[in-house]
């Protein structure tokens, strides 16, 4: 190969071997960002070595705990006298309680046969007969598993919360889309609500609404409402401008536009919003077992406390079945809601009529006959024994392997990180967050993150927060590693993606609680268990985002790189991954928020720290203040992690545009 293009036309003997003096050499760059970051890291390490403390335990009874306990005492003393409660929260509780009782009465009034028929009929009408079969089989399985009442209780709470979420969320979504001021106010609120781990909602709810179904319903409502608002708003804003223009040109009023153009066109999206609200609600309802809500969650919590994986498995299975049935019904309904689907009027009326007749018949038959009162015991089946045997087998045969893995990760990764974090004085941590936050996400995000750190200090839970953070970091690293590997594999091998997709779909419809089960089965109760559960929980969306990021790299760029002779590995490292950087950072942001949510739930299975504080707060009266403070600490930790990573994703885009061209 000759050294310069111009040489080709020149006779060989005329080639001047000396490089062209005019050709500019590589430029010396000023010490770049990278050097700066390296220096800062070194400086941080040096300062840490000088000022590290010997990890003192947190204050036993800091100001914040006493404050929250005081609040609680005040609330308890004044619940029946303060106007705030008398005319506010208590009415809210009564109203929600009434709603829950009504739904409860309706579902139980149908009897099991009637309810199974109702599920099938509803599915048949809105989603087609295949889904109807699925719904019937699914509901029957609740009875077969011996969890009929628990399942119906869960369904009652879910439906109540979703009903409220839709009634409030859809109008709010429309408002947010149509009134810019409302949208601007709602957006940051929704942002924070969506990164709040489920656990953080519970304690404040008990304070205001006591424990039990109403508090659970309201917590679920708060958790499920953000997607309802968001997606509805999205659906309304996505209505094509030209259609609206045409309707306006014909003289429609604003209300006519909304009722006759915007809402009908946004209908499939709104059904999707309902779907999302249902899935969120279901996963929250299960967790509200911790504040005494009835249902499948109770079964799981009790089983987990006894580390009875088998018993938890049946309940977990019932939850998954419920999730799948509800998801399929609503996603198919969303497809059917598309304005382009037409069916004849007669067919449209006939379906519901037949459905109602079927439900009435099943209910009446069930009421009259002896077998209708309770689900026939003869049909029962349980996986508990089998699962417990399998778990025991695994424990027995894999003990060395699982134990080794647990110990290696704990000793090699978790403990060192935890030690460093807990022995760092809070002010050093704050400075580091401010500096690196500003570098990676800009000053605004850094200040918010810094305030979150200050809040953690103020809550008096510094040590616990750092322990939780250590667990979150380890789990996030593992999540990203698995997520990138599977995401890249999926993007590069269509067949792999084809196999993986239904697994991911299923994984993403499962409520988070269920993920604890396999982790507990393999690793017993420990910090590591929480990490495993968090990884299983957070990997699917990360895989999705990574795969999308890599697949979104334009085919033209990939082709150009291949035509230059890139090896598959070079293509991945030099083209696909760098170009998918935004997707990767988005995945990291999502992953870290989900990991935090799950690590906290891991407090139930031995993860300790903040999650345990929250659980203990429900269990013991004297720990209430601490539990509530821990709930807030979790939120602050979430804000901290989210700001630091979300900003990085946004900056990846404009960073390079902002750099001056030389």
């Amino acid at each position, binding site marked *: *190969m*000759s*050294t*310069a*293009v*111009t040489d*080709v*036309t020149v006779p060989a003997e005329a080639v001047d071997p000396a*490089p*062209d003096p*005019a*050709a*500019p*050499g*590589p*430029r010396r760059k000023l010490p770049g960002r990278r050097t700066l970051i390296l220096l800062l890291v070194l400086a941080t390490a040096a300062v840490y070595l000088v000022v590290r403390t010997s990890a003192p335990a947190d204050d036993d009874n800091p100001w914040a705990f006493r404050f929250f306990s005081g609040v609680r005492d005040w609330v308890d003393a004044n619940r029946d006298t303060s106007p705030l409660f008398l005319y506010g929260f208590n009415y809210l509780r009564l109203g929600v309680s009434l709603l829950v009782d009504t739904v409860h009465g309706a579902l139980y009034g149908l009897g099991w046969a009637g309810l199974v028929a109702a599920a099938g009929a509803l599915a048949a009408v809105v989603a087609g007969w295949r889904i109807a079969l699925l719904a019937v089989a699914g509901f029957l399985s609740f009875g077969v598993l011996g969890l009929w009442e628990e399942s119906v209780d869960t369904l009652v709470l879910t439906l109540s919360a979703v009903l409220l979420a839709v009634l409030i969320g859809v109008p709010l979504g429309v408002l947010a889309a149509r009134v810019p001021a409302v949208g601007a106010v709602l957006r940051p609120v929704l942002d924070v609500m969506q990164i709040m781990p489920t656990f953080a909602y519970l304690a404040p709810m008990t304070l205001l609404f006591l424990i039990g179904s109403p508090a659970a319903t309201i917590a679920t409502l708060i958790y499920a409402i953000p997607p309802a608002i968001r997606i509805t708003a999205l659906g309304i804003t996505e209505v094509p401008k030209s259609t609206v223009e045409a309707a306006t040109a014909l003289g429609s009023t604003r209300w006519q536009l909304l009722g006759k153009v915007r809402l009908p066109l946004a209908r499939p999206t709104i059904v999707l919003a309902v779907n999302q609200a249902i899935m969120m609600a279901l996963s929250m309802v299960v967790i509200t077992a911790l504040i005494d809500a009835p249902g499948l969650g109770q079964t799981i919590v009790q089983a987990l406390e006894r580390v009875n994986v088998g018993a938890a498995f049946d309940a977990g299975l019932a939850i998954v079945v419920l999730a799948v049935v509800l998801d399929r019904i609503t996603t198919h309904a969303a497809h059917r809601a598309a304005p382009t689907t037409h069916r004849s009027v007669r067919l449209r009326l006939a379906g519901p009529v037949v459905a109602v007749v079927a439900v009435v018949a099943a209910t009446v038959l069930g009421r009259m006959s002896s077998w209708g009162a309770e689900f026939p015991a003869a049909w029962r089946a349980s996986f508990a024994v089998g699962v417990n045997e399998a778990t025991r087998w695994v424990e027995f045969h894999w003990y060395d392997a699982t134990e080794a893995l647990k110990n290696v990760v704990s000793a090699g990764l978790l403990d060192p990180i935890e030690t460093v974090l807990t022995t760092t004085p809070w002010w050093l941590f704050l400075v580091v967050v401010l500096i690196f936050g500003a570098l990676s996400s800009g000053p605004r995000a850094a200040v918010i993150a810094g305030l979150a750190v200050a809040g953690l200090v103020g809550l008096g839970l510094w040590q616990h927060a750092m322990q939780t953070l250590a667990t979150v970091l380890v789990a996030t690293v593992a999540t990203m590693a698995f997520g990138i590997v599977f995401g890249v594999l999926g993007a590069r091998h269509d067949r792999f993606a084809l196999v993986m997709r239904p697994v991911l779909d299923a994984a993403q419809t499962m409520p988070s609680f269920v993920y604890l089960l396999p982790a507990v089965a393999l690793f017993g109760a420990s910090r590591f268990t929480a990490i495993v559960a968090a990884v299983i929980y957070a990997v699917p969306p990360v895989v999705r985002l990574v795969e999308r990021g890599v697949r979104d790299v*334009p085919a*033209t*760029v990939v*082709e*150009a*790189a*291949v*035509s*230059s*002779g*890139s*090896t598959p590995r*070079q293509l991945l490292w*030099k*083209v696909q991954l*760098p*170009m998918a*950087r935004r997707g990767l950072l988005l995945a990291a942001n999502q992953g870290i928020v989900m990991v935090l949510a799950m690590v906290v739930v891991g407090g139930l299975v031995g993860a300790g720290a903040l999650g345990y504080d929250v659980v203990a707060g429900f269990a013991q009266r004297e720990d209430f203040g601490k539990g509530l403070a821990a709930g807030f600490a979790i939120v602050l930790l979430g804000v901290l992690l989210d700001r630091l990573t979300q900003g990085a994703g946004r900056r990846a885009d404009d960073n*390079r*545009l902002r750099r001056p*061209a*030389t």
Partner: protein
Amino acid sequence: MPPTIAVDHLWKVFGPKADKVVGTPLADLPRAELRAQTGCLAAVRDVSFAVEPGEVFVVMGLSGSGKSTLVRCLTRLIEPTSGEVHIDGEAVRAMNPKRLRELRRHGVAMVFQHFGLLPHRQVVDNIAYGLEIQGVGKAERHRRAAEVLTLVGLDGHEHQYPDQLSGGMQQRVGLARALATDPAVLLFDEPFSALDPLIRRDMQAEVRRLHAEVGKTLVFITHDLAEALSLGDRIAVMRDGALVQVGTPEELVGAPADDYVADFVREVPRADVLSLRWITRDAAPDEVLEDQPLPAGTVIRDTIERVLRARHPIPVVDGDERIGVVDAEQLLPALTGHRPPVPA
């Protein structure tokens, strides 16, 4: 010397049973019928041609005629269904992945219609990409990138990012990237169709200049006839995946193989492309002729003045041999666009 590129009975069939078409009676069906019967699409049908060293070979045809597919089959960016491609005498379809990468790294580079630049890299690193993946050191590849940058007239833009450049400049980067590895063959797939007409003309001039300077073998895809005529030493016209004619611009305009080609070249000013060879007539036995003959290869437009001023017909010679004469009567149909007689 073997031709730089030799293509032999090349087929590319897309579809579910692609390999069950070639060599069966199905192969003789027209494209549309094949598609209706089997769901397969013959994007390239039985194409053969050879490109000589240093030649500019243009492939032309309507959208969907298979040009892009053909050019991608040359380096197996698209795997051919059957047939053979030789580059510098070596069978491309027999190459293992490693050898194929070598070919793409050193032998054949490509310029794309949509540029395919890496948005996360500065111009200089885009250009040096080919060298980087070969393991060339940073200093050396940046030196080399700076050289080709000068060659394509982009001095001073090395530290910008692709989206900070105009379309024309981006394509110059694409061109520089292809030149950086100093390949013997450059493939262009409609490199300028995304650019506006003025810039396109600039870039065509650029390619002509580069070809003169660096003397590479070029395969140039276009659906723009003017571009084809101005760049091509020879032009291949494709239709529905098959080659309908391969020839010099003159042959295409003077003797279109069928109506499809004739349609293509209808608007071409014939006097600008055709030489005298196409319009001579035999001299009458006792005709008086001008003394000074014209060479047969002269483009008609360049002879207008002399022919019109001459009092007698002018003899036309090919070397020493007289092949006929021209006078104003022969010239006028070429100028006004009437179809000339096919030469004997």
